[in-house]
């Protein structure tokens, strides 16, 4: 009997011990509560907690819009990111000088009221609104614009905070390099008076206003950028712009909340605020939409269309595709150096089957890299590669592979199985990369080309692609930023892309350059068309489809007109519950 007394008595201290560990661990986790809270976060966050508790509890906040974003932003400083998940948030707080008309790629005035070029489009004079203030009360003016673009362009700018990790990686991408670099077209920006700025460029740039409309170039409050320093754009700092919503809080791993800017210069937002939830998984976004836990969301799987169509509470806003999904063939890997083999691959792929089966039939089979919106720059007489397995086999026989092949030669001379790389992540152009890859493999196997499917982390995938070490067939794609054919063509067939998969045609490079600096669209079209014909004949990458991303919304939501380039203001959206 005596022994029976021991365990329970002793078990109590054990539980106490476990509790102590738990608390200790909790304390570890929260070890630095006192010194850590960021100066800006505390007051902002306190107001809504205390206020509703005193007055009508949560009456106001429950009417916030809830947006299901496809991931967590890396930053809310629009100039310091390249990811769409971030730009969806920044566009609510930060505004561009020039914007797009809703649902199109037509330019529309925003913080700028007018823009005008000199004769050869090397100097652009932009007239600004004079009635705008930032969320922090400081005025928006020409100096603020100059500050923003200098922080972006000049590597030694005092308030760039590059040493703290800001990169502004998008700038060299669009302008060729930071200020002073030999490849850049950027010369400078100057404030002429309070409402006029002049941008100077090193070569004719007729499409400059389109650049300014890209979501990256949202204007931030110079005061906030200076004061918050490296914290600007992070969960501790948020963003301060002129937009219809102001930053409330960023709960890492969960959501970002924004409240209506009551002092907005334009028509104020219809809803009191918006909460952007981070939901990385497409199926989960759909489920949350079905459950009513989000009001609208983006980048669903194509199969979601059927689900949405069958649910009276849901709707899907129509979208024009402004992207390209393609399959790249690495020319450095024999037999893909052989044009006949590349043509055989193109003929072996049944794009229709892919579009019907895995995109729900919505979108267009792609014969060209340019989407419909840029059809004016497409070659008028294209010699396409229709699905024709017999022709593919003939071409393979002609190329010396009557029974097909299953190996390729790496640059170091070794043989390897033919690899088809598929993306580990869902992108609007390939929303479901894995089954598409499986379908590619099956179609290629039908004509005798045996491939192995492989993937790797998205970052490594891109890394190896840029370094030119992705051998074999590679699935990739692109969503356009603005209405410029070179945003599609130069990005894939320009001199900067030679290393990626070995395509090197100087004739194409110079045609694309000439098209970029041509003064009229007609002149540009001729160059683009010539380049397009050459590209189609060389066939370094097989265009697959132009397919619109799948968006979903609650049927009660009104006013959502998604932009083809991805991301738009939510100010006009409203929902009645």
């Amino acid at each position, binding site marked *: *009997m005596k022994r029976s007394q021991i365990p329970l008595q002793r078990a109590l*201290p054990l539980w106490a011990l476990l509790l102590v560990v738990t608390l200790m661990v909790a304390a570890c986790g929260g070890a*630095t509560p006192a010194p850590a809270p960021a100066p800006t976060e505390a007051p902002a966050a306190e107001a809504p*907690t205390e206020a509703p508790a005193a007055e009508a509890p949560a009456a106001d906040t429950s009417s916030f819009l809830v947006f299901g974003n496809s991931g967590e932003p890396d930053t809310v400083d629009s100039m310091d990111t390249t990811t769409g998940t971030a730009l969806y948030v920044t566009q609510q707080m930060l505004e561009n000088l020039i914007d797009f008309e809703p649902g199109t790629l037509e330019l529309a005035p925003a913080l700028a009221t007018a823009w005008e070029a000199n004769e050869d489009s090397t100097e652009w004079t932009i007239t600004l609104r004079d009635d705008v203030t930032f969320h922090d009360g400081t005025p928006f003016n020409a100096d603020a614009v100059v500050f923003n673009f200098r922080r972006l362009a000049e590597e030694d700018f005092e308030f760039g905070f590059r040493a703290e990790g800001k990169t502004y990686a998008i700038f060299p991408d669009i302008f060729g390099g930071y200020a002073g670099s030999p490849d850049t077209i950027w010369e400078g920006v100057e404030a002429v008076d309070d409402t006029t700025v002049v941008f100077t460029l090193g070569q004719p740039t007729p499409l400059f206003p389109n650049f300014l409309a890209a979501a990256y170039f949202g204007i931030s409050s110079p005061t906030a950028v200076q004061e918050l320093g490296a914290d600007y754009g992070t969960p501790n700092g948020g963003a301060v712009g002129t937009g219809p919503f102001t930053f409330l*809080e960023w*709960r890492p791993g969960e959501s970002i909340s924004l409240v209506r800017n009551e002092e907005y210069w334009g028509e104020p937002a219809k809803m009191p605020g918006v909460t952007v939830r981070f939901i990385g998984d497409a199926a989960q976004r759909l489920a949350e939409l079905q*459950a009513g836990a989000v009001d609208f969301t983006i980048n669903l799987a194509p199969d979601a269309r059927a689900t949405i169509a069958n649910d009276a509470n849901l709707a899907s806003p129509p979208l024009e595709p402004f992207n390209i999904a393609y399959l790249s063939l690495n020319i450095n890997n024999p037999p893909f150096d052989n044009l006949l083999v590349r043509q055989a691959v193109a003929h072996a792929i049944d794009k229709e089957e892919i579009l019907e089966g895995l995109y729900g039939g919505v979108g267009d089979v792609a014969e060209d890299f340019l989407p419909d919106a840029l059809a004016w720059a497409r070659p008028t007489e294209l010699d396409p590669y229709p699905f024709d397995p017999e022709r593919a086999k003939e071409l393979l026989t002609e190329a010396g592979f009557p029974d097909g092949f299953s190996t390729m030669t790496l640059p170091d001379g070794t043989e390897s199985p033919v690899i088809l790389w598929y993306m580990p992540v869902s992108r609007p152009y390939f929303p479901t990369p894995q089954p598409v890859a499986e379908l590619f493999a099956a179609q290629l196997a039908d004509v005798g080309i045996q491939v192995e499917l492989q993937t790797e982390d998205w970052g490594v995938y*891109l890394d190896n692609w840029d370094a030119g070490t992705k051998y074999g067939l590679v699935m990739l794609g692109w969503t356009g930023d603005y209405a410029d054919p070179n945003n599609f063509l130069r990005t894939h067939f320009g001199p900067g892309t030679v290393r990626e998969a070995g395509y090197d045609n100087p004739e194409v490079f110079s045609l694309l350059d000439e098209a970029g600096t041509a003064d009229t669209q007609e002149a540009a079209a001729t160059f683009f068309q010539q380049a397009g014909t050459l590209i189609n004949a060389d066939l370094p990458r097989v265009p697959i489809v132009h397919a619109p991303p799948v968006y979903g919304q609650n049927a009660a939501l009104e006013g959502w007109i998604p932009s083809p380039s991805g991301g738009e203001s939510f100010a006009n959206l409203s929902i009645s519950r």
Partner: protein
Amino acid sequence: MAQYILRRLLGLIPVLLGIAFLVFMMLRLIPGDPATIMLGERSTDEQRINLRAQLGLDRPLFFNTTGEGNLFDSQYFSFMGRTLQGDLGTSIMRRTSVAEELKTFFPATLELTIAAMLIATTVGIITGVLSATRRGSLFDAGSMTFALVGVSMPIFWLGLMLQYLFAVNLGWLPISQRLSPDLSRGFQGITGLYTIDGLLRGRPEITLDALHHLLLPAVTLATVPMAIIARMTRSAMLEVLGQDYMRTARAKGLRDQVVVVRHALKNALLPVVTVIGLQLGLLLSGAILTETVFSWPGIGTWILNGILARDYPIVQGGILFVATVFVLVNLLVDLSYAWLDPRIRY
């Protein structure tokens, strides 16, 4: 005993140092560098080199043998130096301090794990006791079959199915995350455990909402340990119930419940506690998978995302922290045996 504890604590030092080294090394072995991942689809060499320099990734890994500056001016030694001072560095991705991120993400995992452990021990022990006292009954057969299945459950699948059934199909419970946005907006926690914070802040609706969100993931995570505890309790109880002194107790005319709870359960508890201790460690593994299924913003999803983004400071700090908690919990469990079982001597 005190000497034993001291020896064990000292023994942790080389293990923790080893973990720090291992994590640092493994991360550097992972192909792909954070600069490219941050810069995305469109970066140039120049940009990547600049960014690497900004992030200090161009410095030597271990020893600075360039002849310029200190021999120890390297990534490893500055990482170790900062870590020893309690500074886990700054996230590459979001540029917030790792310690601060840990403060937001760890309580989520802790809350999930505690809830799971509570469910597993209560349900497990009760089921085990009832099964043992009704040995051979339908209840016994049924619950032990369930337990057997539970032990073999791939919990990522279970989570998926529960989510489908209760959240998507029936709509009774939320699908993912920890709080409804309407309630979480502007809510500042104290401990980071929302169920407790709701009460501390005088907002019971937050506690309710948090419990609502917690239920599915916690049940998912609890399944395997619950099954193991139920089986263990049953067999320990059976062993005890067969002992002579139990018969004596009954012969003395004590009521069944008294016998079971007062005498049998007490004696059966030691092996059960052993098993509970073992499960605590395993829960952390399970938590990573459960968090993925339910988008639970805990330390598991945080570290996974860190690995994907090659956010070295997050992964280093996160794994080091998890491993430290892990070895400390194991140590405490070991120590508690010594406390519980007088036969163990050190």
